[in-house]
């Protein structure tokens, strides 16, 4: 019964936060709603016996990524109310509606299918994949989820993928440095044209000037 209460509270926090991210007009509020969602997911990770992943979730997401978001919001000074009803691309609105409604329909179908599969009604795909579903609702047999088990998996089965992530991070760092330097150079040229450091504020009224 405790599990149900934990799932209900954390899941409600996740959903409220997710809807808040989409619907809040102020980017700062959206970032704080994102924190709520991330904490709810961390609680669910703990409920799923993934303690290390929950800690990493809190540290990396809530501690690094959201702080990075807030830092950029404050740096750019865009923490004002945004317009929610922009009709720039009406086709994309229809795509969004189709995505949401179609996804909801698939979701309803999935809930029924997944529960039927996990109830032990021998699914052909699961049997062919060598996965034996024996019990109905009981969680899996106890398995090692501590750091050493994850590390053994990470450095044996996924060692090449691990090396590739290091390459990915290096590329991301280099790309960010190049982007930042190029933007400084562009600002210098633009400041020379418009005369002074207030050039970004002036060009704020006309976004088209960014295409110069």
């Amino acid at each position, binding site marked *: 019964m405790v599990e149900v209460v934990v*799932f209900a509270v954390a899941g409600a926090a996740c959903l409220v936060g997710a809807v808040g991210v989409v619907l809040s007009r102020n980017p700062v509020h959206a970032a704080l709603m994102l924190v709520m969602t991330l904490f709810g997911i961390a609680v669910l990770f703990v409920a799923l016996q993934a303690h290390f992943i929950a800690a990493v979730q809190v540290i990396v997401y809530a501690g690094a990524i959201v702080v*990075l978001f807030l830092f950029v919001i404050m*740096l750019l000074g865009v923490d004002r109310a945004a317009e929610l009803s922009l009709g720039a691309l009406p086709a994309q609105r229809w*795509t969004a509606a189709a995505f949401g409604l179609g996804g909801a329909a698939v979701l309803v179908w999935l809930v029924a299918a997944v529960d039927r599969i996990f109830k032990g009604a021998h699914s052909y795909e699961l049997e062919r994949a060598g996965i034996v579903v024996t019990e109905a609702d009981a969680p899996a047999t106890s398995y090692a989820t501590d750091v050493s088990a994850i590390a053994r*998996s990470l450095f044996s089965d996924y060692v090449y993928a691990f090396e590739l992530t290091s390459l990915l*991070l290096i590329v991301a760092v280099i790309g960010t440095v190049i982007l*930042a330097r190029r933007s400084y150079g562009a600002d210098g040229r633009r400041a020379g044209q418009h005369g002074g450091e207030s050039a970004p504020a002036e060009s704020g009224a006309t*976004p088209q000037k960014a295409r110069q």
Partner: protein
Amino acid sequence: MSGLEVTTGWYLTLGAMLFLIGGTGLLVRRNPLIMLMCVELMLNGVNLSFIAFADRFGDVHGHTVVLFVLVVAAAEVVVGLGLVVAVLRASPRATADDLSALKG
């Protein structure tokens, strides 16, 4: 054990709902920062599904995949925010449609 018990399907449903909310927000919103947050919502929904399956099948590999997703999400946020800073510094009211300015 009075009937009501949290099954894997509950977690998968919640993960799918987070994915759908994030995807819909990604298509609806115009602020590039909020669009990046919606991408994070989608990634978290998938992460929840991975952990739920790992718990259901007793396989620690799901946790490893979630670590990889975290790394990719961090790299994506760093590069995406770099782009956003580069564009919004030039024109603070730019929306995602104005990112065509990146074509130079």
